[in-house]
């Protein structure tokens, strides 16, 4: 994206850019969205007269650009609601008899669980599921997961996150952030965007949070609701697998 953008023909230029992205002649992950926006701001400052529809056009184009970029930075095209492996038994030449028994057992477990789900027990403060104290592996895996996410957040470059670090790390960061958000929601049921940001003003954190929220909403894991214009955005977990 070092190629200069012609200020006078901004709209055409961005259209061309989107076309190049769609035809894969330019790799979306290499496009600096922030650079484009900067140039657009400069363009606005120069052209004193611009109509509302110009701005609307640009917003639509910018959205398309961001969408391409978001698609490019996600490592996998589809983020399944859970972990479902896609390879199950499609390419097996003969039926897996060993597995068959366990598939029956799985159905049996479903039945058991259905029966159990009729009864509600009291919950004293803590939320299910419960983990056995003494499970050192679980304790350690929680810690290393948390600290790796935390270090990543802290070490993300401050400057121009959209143009630089998205290419290098953001794919991971967004997934991690999605995971974080899911976990927070499991605990708190509903959170607002502000609570999720916790006053964090780091650009990379804000951007990855928003992209993670949009992706979680797109794949049907959460609801997003803004109760009033410019109000806080409320985030709630939908029911989903797992």
């Amino acid at each position: 994206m070092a190629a200069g953008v012609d200020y006078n023909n901004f709209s055409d230029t961005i259209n061309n850019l989107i076309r190049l992205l769609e035809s894969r002649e330019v790799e979306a992950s290499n496009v600096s969205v922030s650079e484009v926006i900067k140039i657009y701001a400069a363009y606005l400052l120069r052209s004193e007269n611009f109509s509302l529809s110009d701005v609307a056009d640009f917003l639509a184009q910018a959205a398309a650009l961001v969408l391409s970029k978001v698609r490019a930075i996600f490592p996998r095209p589809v983020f399944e609601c859970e972990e479902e492996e896609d390879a199950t038994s499609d390419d097996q030449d003969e039926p897996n008899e060993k597995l068959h028994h366990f598939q029956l057992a799985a159905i049996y477990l479903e039945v058991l669980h259905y029966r159990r789900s009729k009864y509600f027990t009291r919950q004293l403060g803590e939320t299910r599921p419960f983990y056995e104290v003494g499970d050192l592996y679980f304790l350690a895996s929680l810690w290393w997961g948390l600290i790796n996410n935390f270090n990543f957040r802290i070490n993300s470059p401050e400057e121009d996150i959209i143009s630089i670090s998205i290419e290098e790390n953001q794919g991971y960061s967004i997934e991690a952030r999605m995971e974080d958000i899911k976990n927070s929601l499991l605990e708190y049921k509903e959170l607002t965007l502000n609570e999720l940001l916790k006053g964090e003003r780091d650009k990379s954190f804000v951007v990855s949070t928003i992209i993670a929220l949009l992706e979680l909403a797109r794949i049907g894991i959460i609801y997003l609701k803004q109760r009033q214009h410019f109000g806080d955005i409320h985030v709630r977990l939908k029911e989903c697998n797992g």
Partner: protein
Amino acid sequence: MSDSRNAMDELARKVEAILFVSSEPVKSADISNALGVDVKIVEERLNNIKEHYKSHHGLTLINVAGGWQMATAGDLKDVIEEYNNSYGYKLRLSKAAMETLAIIAYKQPITRTEIEEIRGVRSDKVLETLLSTGLIKVAGRKKGTGSPLLYRTTQEFLEAFGINSLSELPTEEELKNEGNYS
């Protein structure tokens, strides 16, 4: 009606109170120890309470994970769900996760590689999901090359599926013969 009065004699009242304060299944042996009463007598009272609940109450006793637990009556499921659906035992697992869980339940302790041999697909992510549900846990490492982790089901597993012990699951033989549990 005198039987229901009997159901709540002094001992039964104590048993009931203990069950109430425990958010988890309680073993009758623990109640017996705590109250210094023969376990058989405790079990008698547990049955009395259950009977009494059946005819008068919105509650019941369920026998799960080797213990007894107070719960709302099965026929009130909809009422409770509507009142506050966050209390229900919500657990939804994908087919892959259920299958893996079944393998672990029957073959525990088992390593990831062994699970994958049975399933024929990579199972690391499913295992991660299952660990995060609390239904399975890591229970040490297998001796030998690489000393891989061993997985086991937890008490939470028994509670979630409403069984007392793994022995209540149909045997592999039964499954083989039964064929169609659906």
